[in-house]
C-alpha cells in the first residue's frame, strides 16, 4: 500500500502538476513522431478550415467532458472541435506543411468524445470525420477514430489526472492516425 502511494508521487507530479481537478486543456506543441512522418511523406502544404461538431450530435459533447468521477476537463478555447483543429495546425506548422493560402483545405467534424475514469480500467474514445477539398472538389472524406484503455487506480488523485492525460493525448493520436492513412497522403501528395 505504501509502495503504491510512493510510486504515485512522481507519476502524479508528471501527470498533473496541478492540485486542481477542474482544468482547461489547450493544444500544445507538435509531436516528434508525427512531424517526422509528415516531413518524410512528401506532401503539399494545406490550410485548415472549419472544425465543428458533427450534425445530430449532442452539443454538450463539444464543450464538456464527463466520466471523470465528478471532476471536469474543458477545452481551453471553448470547444473540443477547435482543440482538434489546433492540434492538427500545430503538427502541420512544425512540419512546414501549413499554408493558409493553399488550395487544399482540411476540415473536420467531431463525431465522438468520451472518457471513463472507472476503477480498474479507464477508457476513452475520440473520433472525427475529416474532409479534404481541393479547388472545391472533395479528395478525401473519412471518419477516423482513436481509442485508449489503461489501468485506472481506485485513488481519484491518481486516476483522474491519468484519465485527463489519456483523453488529451488522444487528439495527438487521432491526428497521427490521420497522417498514417494512405488515402490522406494520396489526397495531399505533391
Amino acid at each position, binding site marked *: *500500500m*505504501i*509502495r*503504491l*502511494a*510512493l*510510486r*504515485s*508521487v*512522481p*507519476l502524479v*507530479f*508528471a*501527470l*498533473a*502538476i*496541478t492540485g486542481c481537478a477542474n482544468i482547461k*486543456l489547450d493544444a*500544445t*506543441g*507538435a*509531436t*516528434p*513522431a508525427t*512531424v*517526422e512522418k509528415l*516531413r518524410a511523406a512528401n506532401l503539399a502544404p494545406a490550410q485548415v478550415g472549419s472544425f465543428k461538431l458533427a450534425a445530430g450530435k449532442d452539443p454538450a459533447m463539444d464543450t464538456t467532458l464527463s466520466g471523470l468521477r465528478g471532476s471536469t476537463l474543458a477545452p481551453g478555447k471553448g470547444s473540443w472541435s477547435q482543440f482538434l483543429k489546433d492540434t492538427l495546425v500545430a503538427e502541420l*506548422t*512544425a*512540419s*512546414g506543411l501549413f499554408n493558409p493560402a493553399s488550395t487544399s483545405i482540411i476540415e473536420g467534424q467531431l463525431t465522438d468524445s468520451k472518457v471513463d475514469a472507472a476503477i480498474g480500467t479507464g477508457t476513452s474514445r475520440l473520433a472525427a470525420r475529416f474532409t479534404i477539398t481541393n479547388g472545391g472538389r472533395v479528395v478525401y472524406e473519412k471518419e477516423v477514430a482513436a481509442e*485508449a484503455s*489503461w489501468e485506472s487506480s481506485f*485513488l481519484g*488523485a491518481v486516476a483522474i489526472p*491519468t484519465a485527463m*492525460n*489519456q483523453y*488529451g*493525448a488522444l487528439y*495527438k493520436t487521432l491526428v497521427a492516425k490521420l497522417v498514417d492513412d494512405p488515402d490522406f497522403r494520396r489526397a495531399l501528395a505533391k
Partner: protein
Amino acid sequence: MPCRGLEWNPRLHREKFMTRFVGALRSLLLAAVMSFLGGCAAFYVDGNAPEVPSAQYKKPASPAGVQLLWEFQTRGVANARATELLKARVSEQIVASGLFSSVSDLPDAGGALLSVTVNNVPLSDDAAGKGFIAGLTFGIAGQTVGDGYEGTLRYTPGRSGAPTLQRSGKHVIYTSLGSGSPPPGSLKMPSVAEAVTTMLRQLISRTLNDLSLEAAFP
C-alpha cells in the same frame, strides 16, 4: 427448513467484518500516506548517471541550425502538462550545448530536426532482471520505489538522404518514505521538482554527448 442463504454463520460474519475493517484501515493508511508524503518522503536521483558537461561534447566545426521538438511521456502516452512545464529547460540546455547554431520550434531553413523524448515508466521490483537498471545502481530496499526514465534523442540532418541518428539513455528517480533506504550513491534532492529537473538535465546531457561523438553528426 430455513433457507441456507439466511442462516446465521458467526465465522462468515466475522470474516466479512474483518475484511471491511482491514479495507477501511488500508484506506485510512493510504490517505495518511498520501497526505503527509510531501513532508516525509525523500527523493533521490541515481548517482551513476551524472551530467556530462557541455564543454566535453565534441563540437562541430560549423554547427547547423536545428528545429527542436520535445515531448514528455508517461508510460508511452504524451503528457502535455509535463511537456509544457519542462519545455523551456530542455530548450535552454540544447541551446547551451554549443552543438547547434540556432534552435527553434519552427522548421529550420537547413532542414535539420532534433526530437527529444523522455518516457516515464514505473519500475517493477524485477527491473534489474529485465535489464532496465543495467549500468545504474540497483538496491531498492524497504519503502523505496524507483521511477524509470527512458530518453531518446533523434537527429535528422538537413542534408537530403542523410540517415537519422538516434541515441538513448536511462535514468532513475527513487522515492523513499521513513526508514526506506535509497540505493548507495544516489543523490538526495530537496524536492520532487528538483529531482525531475536534475534527472532530465543529466539524461539529456549524456545523450547529447553521445550524439556529438557520432561520425555522421552534424
